[in-house]
């Protein structure tokens, strides 16, 4: 009997932790999302009235920011994938004895604060940085164009910040591919491009799926990049939730937005995994 109970006992701390810090807050958040202000009460005083209209109001009011969040997140994910795939491929197949060193370099940004790195991008893209003057001199952007406080800067910041989350799962997946299967493909009349399309890419799909999810999900809810690198015109849904909660003290709307975001991500991810996951995965 004791032997059967032991695993469950070992799981208790984990369940306890998740219950206290995940289930309870979620339930609390759900309750908050349908509350309304107490008539004649102070700011921040709400009572439960089960007003589900909160959701519709919150969404209608912020649909622009919702749309922007998903568009930015998708662009950042695609960019991160395009940058990471060749990088992960090179580390897995071409780096030889420098493999571990390069992997450390991929993770190295984590050694400094997320905020600091984002602020650094503000300087890189700022008037005093080398990027803007160079682009202006080359005539790629006009003399009056700036890069900070633009959607370009926000997407760049997001792409950069989530790059390791894309690179590492891609690397893990590509590194597992037996190079002999690539030789076999060449041996069976496939040129380099066909080999990539028919063998390398399908075999690395688990990494592509994991990497895009690990990038897209946090990117869709991100507010740091938009806050530091963006402007009021580039506000994402994360920024709205943040200001509703901490500045306007409108808890029900913030809660309703959070749930809506969660549901939207869940639906998109489910569709994505269905599409990507069934056919080619091993």
């Amino acid at each position, binding site marked *: 009997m004791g032997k059967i109970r032991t695993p469950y006992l070992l799981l208790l701390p984990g369940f306890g932790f998740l219950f206290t810090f995940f289930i309870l807050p979620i339930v609390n958040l759900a309750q908050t999302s349908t509350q309304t202000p107490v008539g004649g009460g102070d700011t921040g005083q709400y009572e439960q009235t089960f007003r589900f209209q909160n959701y519709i109001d919150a969404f209608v009011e912020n649909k622009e920011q919702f749309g922007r969040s998903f568009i930015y997140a998708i662009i950042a994910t695609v960019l991160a994938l395009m940058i990471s795939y060749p990088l992960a491929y090179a580390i897995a197949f071409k780096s030889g004895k420098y493999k571990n060193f390069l992997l450390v370099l991929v993770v190295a940004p984590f050694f400094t604060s997320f905020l600091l790195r984002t602020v650094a991008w503000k300087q890189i893209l700022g008037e005093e940085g080398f990027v803007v003057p160079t682009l202006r001199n080359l005539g790629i952007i006009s003399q009056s164009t700036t890069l900070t406080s633009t959607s370009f800067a926000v997407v760049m910041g997001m792409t950069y910040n989530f790059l390791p989350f894309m690179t590492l799962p891609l690397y893990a997946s590509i590194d597992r591919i037996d190079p*002999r299967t690539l030789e*076999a493909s060449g*041996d069976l009349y*496939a*040129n380099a491009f*066909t080999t990539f399309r*028919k*063998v390398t890419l399908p075999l690395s799909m688990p990494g592509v799926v994991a990497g895009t999810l690990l990038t897209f999900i946090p990117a869709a809810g991100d507010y740091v990049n938009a806050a530091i690198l963006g402007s009021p015109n580039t506000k994402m849904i994360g920024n709205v939730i943040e200001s509703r909660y901490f500045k306007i003290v409108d808890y029900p709307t913030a809660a309703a937005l959070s749930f809506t975001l969660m549901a939207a991500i869940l639906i998109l991810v489910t569709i994505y995994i269905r599409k990507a996951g069934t056919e080619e995965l*091993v």
Partner: protein
Amino acid sequence: MSFDASSARGDLILTRITKEYGDFKAVDDLSLTIPKGSFFALLGPSGCGKTTTLRMIAGLEEPTVGSIHLGETDITTTKPYQRPINTVFQNYALFPHLTIFENIAFGLRRRGIKDVDAEVNKVLNLVELPHLAGRKPTQLSGGQQQRIALARAIVNRPALLLLDEPLGALDLKLRRQMQIELKWIQKEVGLTFVHVTHDQEEAMTMADTIAVMNEGQIEQMGSPADLYDNPETAFVANFLGQSNLIKGTISGNDGDSLVADLYGQKISLPKSRSHATDNSIYAGIRPEKFRISLLNTPVSGNVLSGGRIEDVSYIGVSTQYQVAMPWGQELIVFEQNDDGVAPFNKGDAVNISWAPIFTFALRGDEDITAGSEVNPEVLDEE
């Protein structure tokens, strides 16, 4: 150009191929012709350059010096996918994400062959696994994967099929069965097979011609019987089976035979089997060619007297004796257990005799340990 290469047919001709990796010569000035339609084996120990040679034929490596021709066509620098050559890889390298059917169809689809279904089914029947078409490679046993790897290659009817230690991952019984099957399939489809292996028994079972490789060069080439009965170097004598090599000198000439003096005892050997360059020789005799007899038994042929049984090991079909000779050497003798008696005991004083025709002679300055220390079970170089 590429279209010329893909339709090339004929003998495979390697001309003065050298492949260097930095200071290391993996293949050293190797020339070789593999006739169309033959079953050819490249046999040698780990690191002898046989896999590198195979990879150069496949186009996975480019020779540092030299040229490779298929019939009239120079394919030295042709890309692998443009060569009419297919490979059965050492660990099969099946595509794990594709079904067995799609694995086999891969090459056909790349070449735009029309009737993929019929071709794939035909070859699945040839390897007797038509019921596995819908499975994934990981759901197959090692032996089944091996056959699918073979099917995936031969379905393309290449001018040349390369087999890189194809049976290395199989257990002994399955390996013996597959050897017979491979040989049969080669006859059936009539393709040129080039087989790389470190297993001398495997090479001898299957190949028409064997090239024994050592340190990037070909030591000797010939039929299995040729190599076994008439090895030209100590390396070949030791690597293909076992040999007793006894130091001696040529002391006379008797028609088609030579007379040799081995530690004061005269023996005779056929001239055609002497590869010595002067009078100093090593006389070689295979252990199963020896006969042991007690001192008072009359014997014919070549005789070496003064032996003493040092060790007896019963192996079932045969008994292996170690016989100490007066000059301090221990000779190995295999006696068939076909007469119902185990006649000799440790310590018996015996004579050793054999038919003169089974004697070969190597150069006297050879390293007689060459080829005997290598462990053929160690897998081949990467």
